[in-house]
């Protein structure tokens, strides 16, 4: 077989390979959540008063939501009630002083990223990809900052942006996902600790891929990062995030918020390869990935494109959305979600058409193996003023065996009769006929499975940056390990 298939096979024989823990000293907040904790985090980060006020307001909104039992219950996922007082909301690797350069980053942390295949050291950096590495609650390093600064691109940790570019943060923070938007967004707004910030100035085509690499390390901590990305008029950026976590028996909560803003003629391509720990084959442990991602196409002819490959997490609850405000703006959502063993995913998108001649495309590929439950949930809303809006949705499910489930929940609301909305859906089992056909041509079962699955996902993988498409294919192999007996 070809080299790539050999490596898939090699990978399928391994289980989750990022499940190690790095032994470092860390600086933790006491367990549990209160106004004091919110103040503690803000104090630790030396934040301006307006941001503390913003957090506190969010915290109060969250308390109200909790009191009124407004935790989202509509998703097709099941988990025991989360005790929000059993979580540590801030955990940072201990460091003696402010870092002057990458050389001062704890060697243990650098080694961790090396092990994950994300070299941060200058000599070994990934070619043409700038990385912001977030370890538990803080950003530990950002590469290629100087080169990006030369063209005016700001790419740094969220905390640094608060200190150095407060006017930008204040202007855009919460402008796409308001603090009280939903239960988990409110929680994030109160306690978010770090994340990435990115600003592409007018007319600039970002010269390299930007990426954030999230790593949960400490036990009992939640990770609440916040990403804010602004693309000014006629700019372009391609952004990628990746994530891993250690293997633990307890579930860990990850509740992030990502906000994207695209102004006139700007284009943002946002890709995610989500590989949080999915739990073991009996459904023990794993990350609860409850994330709010939303982009606003504010400007005319702006474009936001989400591509996600969701393979990890015990539970995924995530709907990367686009608000198509500017006339002629374009929103896209390409998704592959895999659930194996006892994983659950309820994921999809919302496309809100407000401007004229706006168009959106949704391609969703769900794969269920083992006892996995995979739901697509999507909303296409055409507002009254959205003349000539267009949407095309395609939701395909592929099922292995007969214990998993695939579900599709499309919501379509049309308030303008010039709209054209198309929805196609299909569900198929990976068929004995397909497998036999491949095997009759001499192709081994596991190679045949990866071939069929990759074929099924092709229209989404095509949207990923090249090197990550390869990564995603390998991941799929690992995630579906043992799916065919």
């Amino acid at each position, binding site marked *: *077989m070809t080299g790539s298939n050999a490596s898939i096979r090699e990978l399928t024989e391994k289980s989750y390979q990022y499940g190690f823990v790095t032994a470092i000293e860390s600086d933790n907040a006491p367990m549990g959540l209160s106004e004091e904790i919110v103040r503690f985090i803000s104090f630790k980060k030396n934040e301006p008063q307006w941001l503390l006020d913003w957090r506190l307001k969010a915290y109060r909104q969250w308390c109200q939501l909790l009191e009124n039992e407004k935790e989202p219950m509509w998703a097709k996922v099941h988990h025991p009630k989360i005790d929000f007082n059993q979580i540590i909301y801030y955990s940072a690797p201990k460091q003696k002083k402010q870092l002057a350069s990458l050389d001062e980053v704890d060697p243990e942390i650098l080694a961790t990223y090396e092990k994950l295949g994300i070299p941060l050291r200058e000599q070994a950096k990934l070619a043409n990809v700038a990385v912001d590495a977030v370890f538990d609650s803080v950003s530990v390093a950002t590469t290629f900052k100087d080169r990006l600064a030369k063209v005016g691109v700001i790419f740094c940790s969220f905390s640094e942006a608060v200190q150095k570019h407060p006017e930008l943060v204040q202007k855009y923070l919460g402008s796409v996902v308001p603090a009280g938007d939903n239960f988990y967004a409110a929680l994030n707004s109160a306690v978010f600790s770090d994340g990435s910030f990115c600003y592409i100035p007018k007319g600039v085509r970002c010269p390299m891929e930007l990426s954030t690499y999230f790593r949960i390390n400490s036990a009992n901590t939640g990770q609440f990062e916040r990403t804010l990305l602004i693309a000014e008029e006629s700019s372009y950026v391609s952004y990628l995030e990746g994530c891993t976590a250690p293997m633990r028996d307890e579930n860990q909560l990850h509740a992030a918020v990502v906000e994207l803003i695209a102004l006139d003629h700007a284009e943002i391509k946002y890709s995610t390869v989500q590989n949080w720990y999915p739990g073991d084959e009996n459904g023990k442990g794993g990350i609860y990935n409850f994330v709010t991602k939303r982009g606003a196409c504010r400007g005319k002819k702006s474009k936001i494109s989400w591509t996600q490959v969701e393979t990890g997490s015990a539970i995924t609850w995530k709907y990367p959305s686009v608000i198509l405000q500017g006339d002629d703006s374009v929103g896209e959502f390409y998704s592959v979600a895999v659930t194996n063993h006892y994983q659950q995913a309820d994921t999809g998108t919302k496309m809100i058409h407000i401007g004229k001649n706006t168009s959106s495309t949704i391609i969703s590929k769900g794969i269920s193996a083992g006892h996995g439950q995979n739901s697509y949930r999507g909303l296409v809303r055409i507002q009254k003023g959205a003349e000539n809006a267009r949407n095309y949705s395609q939701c395909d499910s592929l099922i292995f065996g007969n214990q998993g489930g695939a579900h599709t929940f499309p919501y379509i609301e049309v308030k303008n009769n010039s709209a054209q909305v198309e929805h196609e859906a299909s569900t198929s089992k990976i068929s004995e006929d397909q497998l036999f056909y491949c*095997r*009759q041509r*001499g192709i081994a079962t596991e190679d045949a499975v990866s071939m069929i699955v990759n074929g099924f996902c092709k229209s989404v993988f095509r949207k990923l940056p090249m090197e990550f498409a390869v990564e995603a294919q390998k991941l799929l192999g690992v995630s579906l390990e043992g799916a065919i007996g």
Partner: protein
Amino acid sequence: MLEIKKLHVKIDETPILKGIDLKVNAGEVHAIMGPNGSGKSTLAQFLAGREIYNVISGEVTYQGKNLLDLSAEDRALAGIFLAFQYPVEIPGVNNTYFLKAALNAKRKRQGLPELDAVDFLKLVKAKMAHLKMDEKFLQRGVNEGFSGGEKKRNEILQMAILEPHLCILDETDSGLDIDALRIVAEGVNALRSPDRAMIVVTHYQRLLDYITPDFVHVLAGGRIVKSGGKELALLLEEKGYSWILEQDKHSSFVAGASL
């Protein structure tokens, strides 16, 4: 090359093949004919390693080895090729990629170096020209959106590339118009060679106008009820299957009486 002895095969608990005896030597072309439901396709798929069928009793040896010990992929790698009656679609999997994976799996088994993309394309384009296939097929998904005739031609293309020792053609003529039939048959004839055997399963005689068999066997009720030369096919065309079945009924009565 292939020897089947007293083979009984069932699917679930239903017996389908009820005592098949067949010997196929290198260089020979055997046609297996018979009415619908006689077990022709079962025999073809069983020989290729389909697991839904279970052996009740009997033996099958291929190149001196017990065929029943080999998995479907090992049979393929040992040179058994089934041209499917209904080739399945594999959406999104590029036809070239699939063909190349299959050929390289075989080369690897033979201890030969894998072919790279350039050499493979050269090979495949040459074979396609013989089958009058458009090169656009290479860019499409495996059988994805192909017409019936295109699928059958794609099967013969795979056969030409993999150069098997034993070719089993399962109703390759079904769904083909006369032009497509001729092209497919020419493709098959080009592969006839003294060291290759073929089993051609067909319902109708018309395919045998183009692919002349050395032997014709009539399969009915899970057994070979009559064997002969190519003239048997013509007789069947003329008289249908019923006279053989009638004759067989009597012979089994007689056989039963002798027990």
